[in-house]
């Protein structure tokens, strides 16, 4: 293997391994799909380097194993679009800005300790809820579920989360209700479900009406009218990981008949 980088072309949609160096095209092609070997030069326009990739001297350094993906630039012509690596993993690492479902484990004075599935528990201040003041504290008990996002998340510090957005409104975040079922899936499935116009959610919605909250840490909360329906939705979502879309459609058709 050459010291500088890959000696073969790497297409978007192929498997890449950590340590691979991807050299950017000197002149972007018509479709911008191929990353070729060649003297690297600064790419024109802004190139977004997504999860699993890092900038290095020669180009992009792959840090996770998975499939390489590319999104062409939204505007016309300029800009290199975005590259990222689609990888499969179950263990969550807190990332700033991720919306997550946490379980409150302790109340310590002004803050709540929340378990988010990472190596450390996140801290959540009681003032970080909509309409909360020093006198008007939110009604959070140990063992409750909260849906919030990270404002501080790096590997050297304890992560911090809040249940309001930057303008002070809840925007769907906060304490999740007392009914419903929480279960865990892999992170890749969550990203698939969060993609716009996800088929799975739409098809399930036609089956039964239900409420669903997806946390980027692999946790899903579901609530339907009856216990049986909730269980069905939960089991289908867990099984979606390993089913192709035809199998899923068959399973849903069988359910809607019975």
């Amino acid at each position, binding site marked *: 293997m050459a010291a500088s980088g890959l000696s073969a072309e790497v297409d978007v949609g192929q498997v890449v391994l950590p340590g691979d160096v991807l050299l950017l095209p000197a002149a972007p092609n018509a479709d911008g799909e191929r990353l070729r070997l060649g003297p690297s030069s600064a790419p024109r326009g802004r190139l977004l380097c997504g999860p699993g990739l890092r900038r290095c001297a020669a180009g992009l350094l792959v840090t996770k194993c998975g499939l390489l993906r590319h999104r062409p630039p939204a505007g016309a012509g300029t800009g290199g679009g975005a590259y990222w690596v689609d990888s*499969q993993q179950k263990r969550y690492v807190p990332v700033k800005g991720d919306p997550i479902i946490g*379980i409150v*484990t302790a109340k310590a004075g002004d803050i709540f300790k929340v*378990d988010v*599935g990472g*190596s450390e528990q996140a801290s959540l201040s009681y003032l970080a809820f909509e309409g909360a003041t020093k006198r008007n504290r939110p009604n959070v*008990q140990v*063992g*409750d*579920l909260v849906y919030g996002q990270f404002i501080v998340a790096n590997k050297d510090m304890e992560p911090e989360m809040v249940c309001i957005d930057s303008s002070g409104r809840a925007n769907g975040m906060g304490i*999740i*209700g*007392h*009914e*419903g*079922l*929480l279960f865990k899936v892999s992170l890749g499935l969550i990203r698939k479900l969060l993609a716009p116009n996800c088929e799975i959610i739409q098809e399930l919605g036609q089956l039964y009406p239900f409420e669903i909250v997806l946390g980027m840490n692999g946790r899903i*909360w579901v609530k339907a009218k009856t*216990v*049986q329906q*909730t*269980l069905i939705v*939960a*089991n289908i979502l867990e099984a979606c*990981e*390993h089913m*192709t879309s035809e199998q899923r459609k068959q399973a849903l058709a069988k359910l809607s008949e019975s």
Partner: protein
Amino acid sequence: MKETPLSNCEKRFLLRAIEERKRLDGRQSYDYRNVRVSFGTDYGCCVVELGKTRVLGQVSCELVAPKPNRATEGILFFNLELSPMASPAFELGRQSELLVKLNRLLERCLRNSKCIDTESLCVVAGEKVWQIRVDLHLLNHDGNIIDAASIAAIVALCHFRRPDISVQGEEITVYTPEERDPVPLSIHHMPICVSFAFFKQGTYLLVDPSEREERVMDGLLVIAMNKHHEICTIQSSGGIMLLKDQVLRCSKITGVKVAEITELIQKALENDRKVRKEGGKCGFAESIPNQKITAFKMERAPVDANDVEEQAEEIIMKADPPLDVFAKPILWTPGTAQIGEGVENSWGELEESERGEEEDDDNDPDTLEDPKMEMEDVSIVSKTKKDDTIVLSDSEEEEVVILKPEKVPKKTRTPTSSKQENSSKKVSNKKRKKKRVSY
């Protein structure tokens, strides 16, 4: 890592579901999860999967001196280990309450029920007995460790074969598996534990609780029974009050479940015996299925089919004519034959004996080990006959061999030639390796 705490929401939902007689994975209240038994290549090694709970069992034996107050009985030793691999709640090295409880239960179930005949493990009374050691490792914790562990222990014991021995006076001869077939242990019956989880002060009962159900249960009742409906052990934990008829009902359910599981175990043991007898492949690599996320994904590799004909014609024109095929083998000695003459070697001048070796190496690479070994012996013998002094080491070290870089016949840059260079490199590597072996 700490274990994920159970949220109030989950607890409430689970209890509500149990009240409506619904379980998370769709089972009925008295249903077991799927039990799968797979065996390793060694005797006495097995993996039992109860749903997602997995236990690995390994049995080993050793000849030791018996306990002084039990001079004619063998020794049984059981050990269950919970490692952090099974669940983040388990810490290595720490004797947790759960571990002690499980180990005690296993011992009572298997040792006190006298399922293994310890008298048959005695070799010389008072001096040598077999010590049978059963090691169980929990690989994944998804509830109901004790059931999976007891099944793994009894399956491993039934599968195990100890070396055959013969006693002549004071002499004990232990035969290796090659000399005499190893002997199975003498097992009277197969006790299997069945767990019952109780909820809401004993109102609701579930068989084979999964991990989440275990977290919300009030109490646990474990009954160990064999297929003859003999109860080997009963243990109730959690401090719940059970009524007489509840316990009787549980024991009836246990009888049914144990019969099913025993049948499954017998079938698995029978299958494994058949496979081993026929000499087929056995072991975990065969029996444990591959779990791949991309199991359904198929990559279509695009093949560039442009100009295939022109490329092919070019290659054929530049290629050498095919070598004459020698179909008749030449017999050197009984057991050693040569087919064909092999390619020209590119290493320069070498000694006669080594050249003789090489020619045989260039034959089809699938020759058996024995003819190769014989060939090397022949070459060494021929060497010593020729020389006056006996050469003990390889000639490479004693004489200087100048390698003349012979011209490789082709130096064209079409892709096929690179393949040929690679193959010649491979062949020369093979030659190098063979020289080292012939020390």
